[in-house]
């Protein structure tokens, strides 16, 4: 752990910016050295994408059913994912499981702000229209729905506009 201290100091301002509201605040310095070390995340993403498609989570129709209470499917998916995630996190904490590089796994508490309400509602609107949260957008493009590239670019634009007006919005 001692060798990671200078690295932490060096990236501290960066960390603060990221921790404002990015989800990935805990990063490993070890992975940053060589680009190919990131291929393992691509493989995890790939398996994740296959599950997305095969369980029809990327389907606009399934999302419409969810918001009309016509199917249990999406509630089952999200609910069981949360249960498995919770048990995993509990086990990691209980047995102090380390990363494959031997680093301590860190969890960063999220702080409440009004953005979770306003932003949450806005995202909910977009989710019901497009039938996709950000993850499924990438998978939908992969399945051949090329026009979703436009939806993805628009989502990137939405993120940019949020960043531009961030200081003027209630937080």
């Amino acid at each position, binding site marked *: 752990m001692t060798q990671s201290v200078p690295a932490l100091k060096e990236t501290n301002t960066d960390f603060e910016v990221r921790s404002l509201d990015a989800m990935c605040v805990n990063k490993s310095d070890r992975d940053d050295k060589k680009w190919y070390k990131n291929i393992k995340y691509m493989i995890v993403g790939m398996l994740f994408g296959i599950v997305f498609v095969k*369980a029809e989570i990327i389907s606009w129709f399934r999302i419409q059913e969810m*918001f009309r209470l016509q199917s249990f499917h999406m509630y089952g998916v999200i609910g069981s994912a949360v249960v498995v*995630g919770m048990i995993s996190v509990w086990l990691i904490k209980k047995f102090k499981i380390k990363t494959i590089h031997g680093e301590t796994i860190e969890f960063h508490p999220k702080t409440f702000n009004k953005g979770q309400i306003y932003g949450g509602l806005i995202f*909910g609107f977009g989710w019901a*229209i497009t039938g996709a949260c950000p993850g499924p*957008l990438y998978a939908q493009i992969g399945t051949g729905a090329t026009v979703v590239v436009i939806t993805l670019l628009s989502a990137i634009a939405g993120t940019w506009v949020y960043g531009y007006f961030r200081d003027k919005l209630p937080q």
Partner: protein
Amino acid sequence: MTLIEWIKQPWPWYIAGPLIGLTVPTLLILGNKSFGISSSLRHVCAACVPAKIPFFSYDWKKEVWNLFFVVGIFFGGIIAAQWLADPEPIRVHQALVSELAGYGINDYTSLIPLQVFNWPALLTVKGLVMMVGGGFLVGFGTRYAGGCTSGHAIMGLSTLQWPSLVATCCFMAGGFIMANLILPFILSL
């Protein structure tokens, strides 16, 4: 039934949900990464058009794992569509089928309604509102909320964060309002 035929069927929630849940410990153990997807949109902004905005002025290269992850999701989509696709049309609840028929949507060959989401439709008001407007709300809303379904609903709830519970409830509330009260008007355009 061969294994490949078995895999090609739509997967039930009790298979898919736990597999998605396992992404949380996998990313943590592989490199201390908190599961989250909408951050990738922010990293693209930081990489391509930071425009000296403080929110995008950070070293996105340190978050590049997240971009590899979403590129992986894209490849996963290709693999699933090319080699694991279910030849049957998607089975949808009868009430939804009747409702959508009223808007002229009756093509169930794809996971998304091709009659709404297609290139020529971008030139119509409905297509513009749904693809460009909807995408904008997804990008703006997720960043304002500080995460999406993965970051808040799955990662946040897994780590027992109450702000994530608030966010998840608001995602669902927004979705219910849109799908039941506003979307009917948009689909009628």
